[in-house]
């Protein structure tokens, strides 16, 4: 299985199916339907209430009884006026009865009458032929405030002639009457138009309520549209993931509601899927390369012994034949040196290749990451000879499940690289152990030249090397072992210069 080598991480995403998926319209229809129901349902009781209010208002203010009672009020005034008229006629009559016969006394009688008889304004005595015999007028005084209306009363005298008395009645009564009449007429008009009034008031209410409902629906619709849009984006991302594009992500905007949580969960899930897939792809790739390494080691190793043997025979034969050509002897000696050196290099290569090919499976055992790193430093004296090592441990224990032998290999490869990167100078190595985001994190950084960003994605590829005598297998082995531990390894830059490898491993069991 060498094929996956050629392709890095992702397969290209399949083209998305065209047009909106059917769920989308159904969802927004449901949402809008619910909003519509929510907005219109309260209208029914509201309208019933309005109807009742209109009815009861009309009942109080526009009851037929109100109009009826009011229309009877002028009749009451009529009674009052009649009583007044009768009273004044009575007074005029008694005035006539008391009239003195002597003509000389009549004027004084009338004068006295206007002064004493209540409400009598004017009195005149006419002879049978209409001649004015005597007349008296009440002096304008306090009685007249507020306005008065004249009420004439005439009495025919027994001996011919007429007594004409003018009484007064309060003008205010007439004003009151007019006002009442107007009111009664209004009530009557309103009563006639009562049904229509109720209808128009209800229509106004209905209009108000519709405006409110319309606003509610509109606002609700806008809000729903936002949610639908976010769900649409989520669904779109889902489709892309289903089509194989694991780089799809959703913006979890929207302020911590369920949709945002869903989006966030989706992102986490897709990220995990992506890492899992990357891991599988990488491991497949490595196993392909391991195959190649095994075959190569085999093919190279086999001819090495015959080459060595053949050359040893040649040298033995030369030594057994004394007195030969000295130049040839020297040449043979040099050639022998070269052959031995190259064969040794090839043998070392073969060893490394077959070591890479035979990389065993991880057999994890519970351990503390801090202890493991301390132990590594303590048992690697050659490291201390070539580098300044600083170890930063976490305050508490960090339980992990690891294969100590293979993990040791990881640290060896990483520290080896750091030492090599420092060149002839003494390397400065920083080992760190920490717990971050429910992961155990091991960092190996140095103060060397680091790796430029463009090269960083390739350093874990097998056979990638910038060194003349390097195999480029060191980091590939590192990554394979880390992945088999269920972890990830990343190369970054150390702040202040240098490379920084970060290995994160899953925490084992409880704290």
């Amino acid at each position, binding site marked *: 299985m060498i094929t996956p080598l050629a392709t890095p991480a992702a397969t290209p995403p399949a083209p998305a199916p065209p047009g909106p998926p059917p769920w989308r319209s159904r969802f927004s229809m449901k949402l809008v339907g619910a909003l519509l129901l929510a907005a219109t349902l309260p209208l*029914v009781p509201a309208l019933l209430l309005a109807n009742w209010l209109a009815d009861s208002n009309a009942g109080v203010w526009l009851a037929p009884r109100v109009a009826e009672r009011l*229309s009877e009020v002028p009749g009451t005034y009529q009674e009052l006026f009649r009583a007044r008229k009768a009273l004044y006629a009575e007074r005029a009559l008694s005035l006539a009865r008391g009239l003195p016969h002597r003509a000389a006394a009549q004027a004084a009688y009338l004068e006295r009458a206007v002064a004493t008889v209540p409400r009598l304004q004017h009195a005149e005595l006419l002879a049978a032929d209409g001649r004015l015999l005597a007349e008296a007028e009440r002096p304008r005084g306090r009685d007249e405030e507020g306005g008065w209306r004249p009420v004439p009363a005439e009495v025919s005298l027994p001996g011919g002639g007429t007594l004409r008395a003018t009484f007064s009645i309060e003008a205010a009564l007439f004003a009151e009457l007019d006002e009442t009449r107007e009111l009664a007429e*209004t009530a009557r008009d309103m009563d006639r138009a009562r049904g*229509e009034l109720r209808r128009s008031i209800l229509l106004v209410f*209905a209009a108000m309520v519709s405006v409110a409902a319309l606003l509610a629906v*509109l606002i609700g619709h806008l809000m729903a549209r936002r949610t639908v849009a976010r769900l649409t984006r989520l669904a779109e991302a889902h489709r892309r993931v289903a089509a194989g594009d694991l780089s799809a992500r959703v913006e979890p905007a929207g302020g911590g509601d369920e949709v945002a949580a869903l989006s966030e969960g989706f992102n986490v899930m897709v990220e995990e899927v992506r890492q899992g897939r990357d891991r599988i792809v990488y491991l497949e790739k490595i196993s392909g390369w391991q195959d190649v390494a095994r075959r190569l080691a085999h093919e190279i190793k086999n001819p090495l012994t015959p080459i060595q043997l053949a050359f040893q025979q040649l040298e033995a034969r030369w030594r057994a034949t004394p007195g030969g050509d000295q130049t040839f002897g020297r040449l043979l000696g040099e050639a022998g040196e070269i052959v031995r050196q190259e064969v040794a290099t090839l043998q070392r290569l073969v060893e490394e290749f077959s070591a890479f090919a035979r990389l065993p499976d991880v057999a994890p055992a519970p351990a503390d990451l801090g202890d493991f790193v301390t132990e590594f430093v303590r048992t690697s004296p050659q490291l201390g000879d070539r580098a300044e090592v600083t170890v930063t441990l976490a305050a508490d224990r960090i339980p992990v499940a690891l294969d100590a032998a293979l993990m040791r290999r990881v640290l060896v490869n990483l520290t080896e690289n750091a030492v090599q990167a420092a060149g002839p100078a003494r390397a400065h190595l920083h080992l760190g152990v920490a717990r971050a985001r429910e992961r155990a994190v091991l960092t190996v950084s140095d103060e060397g030249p680091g790796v430029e960003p463009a090269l960083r994605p390739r350093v874990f590829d097998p056979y990638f090397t910038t060194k003349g005598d390097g195999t480029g297998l060191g980091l590939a082995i590192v990554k394979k072992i880390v992945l088999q531990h269920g972890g990830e390894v990343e190369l970054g830059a150390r702040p202040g210069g240098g490379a920084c490898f970060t290995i994160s491993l899953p925490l084992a069991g409880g704290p």
Partner: protein
Amino acid sequence: MRRAAANPAALTHAAAACLVAATLVANPISAPALASVDPAPLRVDCRGEAGRLLATVDLGPAVDAGLERKLGNGLASTVRLTVAALDPSGAGAGGVERDFDVRFDVWTETFTVTIREPGAAASSRTVSDWATVRRLLATPAPFDLGPLAALPERFTVEARLELDPVTGLQLGRTRERLAHPAGGRSLLGSLAAFLLRAPPPDAERYRSTLLTRSDFAGGAASRAR
């Protein structure tokens, strides 16, 4: 989002429909049962004159004690009398309208009757007894029902008597009252005033028996019960 964006219009319509339905359910705006009562019989004297039909109606049965009480209550009232010639099925529009404004003055105890008819000068009379008013109303001057030629061959005469019809003036006053309750101006009141319609007429109807047009061609007079 295209679909969702297309929805508000449909939505608004649906809301409006719901609202109208709810309004109808909650508010039985019943058109009053018009013309559900059969008209009472009408005595009418018809006469052809210069090719026109003149009808003298007898509304004696209508001008009763109840009407006397209503017209004598001291308020200004209007009796609207409409006389029309209808074809046998009862169809036929228009008719001649005559308003009697009656007002009883509780101080002077007299009736003032003003008779108004479109196209004629108003005449006003002040009388002191109900009998005269009754006569004026029960046997009004003949109504000119238009050219005989325009009438169907067989027709009936219908008289409609309406007490205090809601006139445009009254409607205007009611609207004003709605729009300006307690002095100030009310927006909702204005809206209600805008939506206020004239109530349907509420008239007592009297109808004659069938008459034949040709009977009046020669200026003949006919009486129908």
